[in-house]
């Protein structure tokens, strides 16, 4: 069973509906570690050594955050800058996170339709998340498409509950068998991965 680290960043978690709902049912999964960055580092003084130890102890990494001004909250950027440092995660020296799986779980206020070339935001979520994708590639990690919960202001409770179930199922499945790159080609959102995963030979 692969261990999953959720690097969660929400500066106002106490008022977040969608992210709270997504995280709530994960607390009893023993393979999932929820690491609340704003709770751990209220003054942004990230302890890189500790974060790197934590990364090494997990095989699947998730950035989970609400989408602010077309990017992640500043804590995620601070974390990427400090923790995925040159000489450790990339560049000369070892690629400590090579072959690990990583993806982003993102909640957006705007609807799925508004993130399209002809939509209000003029670009797809895949395009907005290119810096995260490239960061993962730089570190030699497998980057999966994002898990998106969109139009959060208008989500009804049953709709949100469907996302919550899907998220939990997805994490459980990933911890049992991560998908192969072939399965992911052309996929825009991770929850389209609806077919059951074939068992991988080396497991």
């Amino acid at each position, binding site marked *: 069973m692969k261990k999953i680290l959720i690097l969660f960043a929400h500066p106002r978690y106490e008022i977040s509906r969608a992210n709270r709902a997504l995280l709530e049912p994960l607390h009893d999964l023993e393979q999932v570690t929820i690491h609340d960055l704003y709770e751990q580092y209220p*003054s942004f*003084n990230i302890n*890189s050594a500790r974060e790197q130890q934590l990364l090494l102890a997990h095989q699947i990494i998730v950035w989970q955050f609400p989408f602010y001004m077309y990017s992640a909250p500043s804590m995620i950027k601070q974390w990427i*800058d*400090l*923790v995925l*440092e*040159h*000489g*450790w995660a990339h*560049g*000369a020296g070892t690629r400590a996170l090579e072959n690990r799986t990583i993806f982003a779980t993102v909640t957006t206020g705007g609807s799925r339709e508004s993130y399209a070339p002809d939509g209000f935001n003029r670009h797809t979520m895949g395009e907005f998340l290119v810096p995260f994708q490239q960061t993962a590639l730089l570190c030699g990690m497998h980057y999966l498409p994002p898990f998106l919960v969109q139009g959060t202001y208008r989500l009804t409770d049953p709709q949100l509950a469907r996302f919550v179930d899907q998220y939990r199922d997805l994490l459980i499945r990933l911890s049992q068998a991560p998908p192969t790159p072939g399965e992911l080609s052309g996929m825009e959102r991770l929850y389209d991965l609806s077919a059951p995963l074939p068992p991988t030979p080396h497991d």
Partner: protein
Amino acid sequence: MTDGILGQAIVYLAAALLCVPLAKRIGMGSVLGYLLAGVLIGPFCLGFIGHEGEDIMHFAEFGVVMMLFLIGLELEPAHFWRMRGTILGLGTLQIVLTTLAMALPLSLLGFSWQSALASGVALSMSSTAIVLQTMKEKGLTQTRAGTGAFAVLLFQDIAVIPILALLPFLAMGGSTADGMESTLLQGLPGWIRASSVLVAVVGVIILGRYVIVPFLRIITRTSVRELCIAAALLIIVGIAFLMKQVGLSPALGAFLAGVLLANSEFRHELESDIEPFKGLLLGLFFIAVGASINFGLLLDDPARLFLMVLAVLLIKACVLLAAGKIFRFSFDQNSIFALGLSQVGEFAFVLFSFINRLGILDSPRTDLFMAVTAISMTLTPLLLLLNERLVLPRFGTLEQERRQPDQIESVHQVIIAGFNSFGSTLGRFLRANGVEATILDNDSDQVDLLRRMGFKVFYGDVSRLDILRSAGAEQARILVVAIDNPSMTLDLIENVKKQFPNLTIMARAGNNLDAHELLDLDVRHIYRDFLDTAVRAGVDVLAALGQRRFSATRSAQDFIRYDEDAMVRLAPHRHDQSSYISNTREQIRLQEQLLANDRERNRLRHDHAWDNTSREMPD
């Protein structure tokens, strides 16, 4: 042996010490223990105390007076006002219905309507002392049964005044004057006596506001604890005396004084000063009740007496059940409420002797009612025990008693001990974030000032556990010890850990040595004076010297984190040195060790990510 006050004291104390632990061991509560002790040493059993029982009674009633003072203290006027509906509604209902339900059968038994009515009123009284003590021991004071009982008892205590005033009108033959207990107003016309009641109540209010509080301020400034206790006793004795002079219930006067002082800063101090006296005197009161049971009457016609007790209990319980039903008590609560209040109370002793002196009731009947009263009081704890063991498990709805929100809000989750600049800053910060704290301090000038600035501050020696308890330490979650004196801090924490394991302790420490002592006590949240302020000043120094403020601030945060780790790491090692090393040398050694560790760490400190030097090699 029992001659003289010393012999008497030995008898009373020994009986109490013997019976109360025994009663508690069998699960009966201390009230029953005291009552049994009274029966044991009374004229019927061992005969150590005979007719002196009556003298003791007068003295022991003081326990009831003190209890009402304490009830008053715990009752903030706002809370009292919220309960007004229950007090007036439930109280009136209980007295009127019980009086009628008693008077009717009595008049059928051949009592004149006057004596039936007077006896009915007296029998409608319940025992404040027994009920509140028993409820408290069973932890029922916050339940609906508890608050309902409190309301009824309070109303009865208040109602005693008009009842005492009106009883003379029932007297036949006009021999009213010599019946009044009043000594000061004896022989004066009725309207003066009536208006004296008003004058006395207003007098207590004025006295409380303009004499007692300033007087207490002067006394507490001397910081002699005995004086504070003496002052507290003087207040109660004085008010009781004043009330007696005008023929009012001393208990009511004490209650009034308590309510008046409830909003003053001395509330917690007074509470804990009087508490031990109250307990002992109440015990004495219960012993006296036990001793005053007339077993002669019991032997003459036991069946008749017990039938009467049973009838009285049954009638009162039925009336209370009906009243509880009207006020929508659940079955569990109503059964506790009705059985709890079904006895005849201590005011009945006062009323019956008054009725007797007025000539409304003849002596044999008065004696009989007195015996009924005493026996019914003795039976109360037993009744509640039976209810708890036999009735509730079978018929109870077992519903969880929800605590009423207005009672929670008076107990804050945070207690701050010591309202110095540390405590006050903390208090202001918490308040700015919507968290109210109970604040205790023993500097009455400071307390007064802060109260005028709108803070909820209580005067009290914070190192005393009883004060902490009255400040709600049993329900609170966090105790912040902000006291200036290190040895006081340690004593307090040691005791608090034993008495209130529910409290998370957060403590302020003067320096590293104090912090180590706190670590030895297993305190995990330690705040050393000036650590944060000094480091913040350090950031300003570095910035003024030309360093980047962001780097300096991050370094400051690292320093604090590291310093706190080092404090924990170094704590066990400080005992290695021989004990003759003075504190100063120890201090210097520790500082050097810290500084050495810091140098070590700063040398190793690196910031790869934002540091270009690691990337200078071409890929």
